[in-house]
């Protein structure tokens, strides 16, 4: 009996040791926006686990947080969503003392109108919303996908019927149509938006689907020959196609009319369970080598000066990752809409989806 008691006491004493769970950093991230190797390296540094959950659209992220979603430490929204999250009072101010590597970010990406003084956000990576294509099929069909016309002009689409997907995102698709008509991606003139709607409706019968989640796979498999989507997703589709030894490549094409540039930044949620780990993670991701992974492994554009020397030279040739000065001038960051503008845009979007 005594032995049993001792054993019981020993178990009781050792219980807290068992109960101590490994520290966990909760990262709420875009699909396909962080390589596993980088995560593993961070886990080794912090002696913690990284748990990722994913979203495919900034509006989805905002909706989840507005509905009371909590438990996230670090999130990676686009700058316009950062501005909205600041207004929502959903973010924890960054402690600059804990993020010395913030100095690695190129000055042109700091102190933007979305977050003056970068009180809340640390720029992380860039993507351009463009067109990804199957090079073999485009050659066969004689299509040069250098313009938004490839997804909007019925004359070109006639050859691609059922082989094109566009993004299932009101802002991104409207921006592409506005750019195609020569307007700004941030145009809120109702007449111009109506014009963009007509452009979309004329092209819609030729599209296979509005697709936000599976176009990487469809491009890789060869089911879809042309997709409107993020530049780093096209990079991923190309890697996958190579790995699967497909007889074609998936290449990004920068539309000559210009496109939407998304600068994504790391922020910390106000109710983050582990703000300490969150700061550590942000600083880690801003180190040159780790930041370079984003370009080398997932094909993101990179706002980090220190990262440049670690980036594979062949990637620096790709215009979709490193736009030249002329192209850069035509890139625009989306701004958040005010409630009235959003209501109008959403009505148009519902009409587009239903007609």
């Amino acid at each position, binding site marked *: 009996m005594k032995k049993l008691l001792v054993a019981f006491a020993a178990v009781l004493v050792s219980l807290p040791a068992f109960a101590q769970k490994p520290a966990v950093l909760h990262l709420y991230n875009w699909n396909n926006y962080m390589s596993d190797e980088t995560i593993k390296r961070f886990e080794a540094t912090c002696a913690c686990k990284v748990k990722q959950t994913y979203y495919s*659209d900034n*509006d*989805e992220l*905002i*909706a989840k947080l*507005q*509905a009371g979603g909590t438990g996230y430490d670090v999130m990676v929204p686009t700058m316009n969503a950062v501005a*909205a999250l600041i*207004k*929502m009072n959903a973010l924890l101010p960054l402690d600059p003392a804990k993020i010395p590597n913030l100095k690695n970010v190129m000055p042109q990406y700091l102190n933007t109108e979305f977050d003056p003084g970068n009180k809340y956000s640390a720029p992380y990576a860039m993507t351009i919303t463009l067109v990804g294509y199957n090079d073999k099929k485009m050659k066969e069909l004689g299509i040069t996908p250098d313009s938004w016309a490839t997804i909007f002009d019925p004359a070109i689409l006639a050859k691609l019927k*059922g082989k094109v997907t566009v993004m*299932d*995102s*009101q802002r991104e698709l409207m921006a592409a149509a506005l750019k195609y008509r020569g307007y700004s991606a941030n145009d809120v003139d109702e007449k111009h938006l109506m014009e963009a709607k007509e452009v979309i409706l004329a092209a*819609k*019968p030729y*599209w*296979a*689907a*509005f697709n936000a*989640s*599976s176009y990487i796979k469809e491009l890789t*498999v*060869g*089911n879809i020959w042309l997709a409107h989507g993020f530049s780093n997703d096209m990079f991923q589709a190309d890697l996958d196609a190579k790995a699967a030894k497909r007889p074609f490549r998936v290449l990004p094409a920068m539309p000559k009319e210009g496109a939407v540039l998304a600068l994504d930044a790391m922020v910390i949620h106000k109710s983050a369970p582990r703000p300490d780990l969150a700061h550590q993670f942000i600083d880690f991701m801003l180190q040159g080598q780790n930041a370079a992974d984003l370009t080398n492994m997932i094909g993101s554009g990179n706002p980090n000066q220190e990262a440049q020397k670690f980036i594979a030279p062949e990637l620096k040739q790709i215009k979709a990752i490193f736009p030249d000065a002329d192209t850069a001038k035509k890139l625009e960051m989306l701004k958040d809409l*005010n*409630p009235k503008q*959003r*209501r109008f845009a*959403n009505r148009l*979007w*519902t*009409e587009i*989806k*239903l*007609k």
Partner: protein
Amino acid sequence: MSTRVQKWILSGPPLLYLLVFFAVPVGIMVLASFRYAGEFGGLAPLFGTGDPDELTGLTLESYQRFFDDRIYLELFAKSFVYAVVTTVACLACAYPLSLMIARSPKKSRDLLVLLVILPFWSNFLIRVYAWMIILGPQSLFTRAFNGLTGAFGLEPMPLLFSPIAVLIGLVYVHLPFMVLPLYANLEKHDPALLDAAQDLGANAWQRFWRITFPLSLPGVYAGAALVFIPALGIFAIPDLLGGTDSMLIGNLVKQQFLDARDWPFGSVLSIVLTAAAILFAGLAAWFGRQKRT
């Protein structure tokens, strides 16, 4: 303890559960439908700061928007048609299957029922992704299908990202919900009734149509309600398998809450959807009871 107290104790937990997780959210939804949308989703405050541009207080605007534009009612009609087709297709597939299981030897029945619910052991989305591969343009199935239709001189057609893909997905996902109540009903039929009918000269068709089928109607109604109601509100299947014209009412509701940041309009759509679902569940229950007495 009196039986009345026992009844209350037994029905208390589920009742409380329904009250908290169904009645209260529906109440919140009804209240939300009369409010303005907040800037970042959620609802605008009831009492404003006095800024004349600010939208505060109560409004019928979201209801007006629903009834002003025919596209929303048309979308309801379309979703209704998809749900009806799904229900009928499920019934057509499930009835012979359930009958077969119910009439098979007793010891193999449990195994057969287990096979019906086996798909539930893997995640719903994984099963839908499997259908994306099966229906993809390069799959054996699609090529065989188009080879077959080609033999009749028809143009090859894409299966994935089409209304057909959505219907296949809807029927596939909901089939077990039709099989189980039907089987539960058919299994209880007294075989002596069929023997008696045969003795009195009824042929196989008459025995089915005048005995088995009428007796199975409560199972049919229960299965139809279990299939029709979720099929009416589903959004994942049209999202994944559907093309540019496959949006259903569930997708619009999801879009209002997740993308459009318009909770009030999303609430109006949900209220109409909930009302339709309650109406059909009520009709099914009523028909089921009529036949039993």
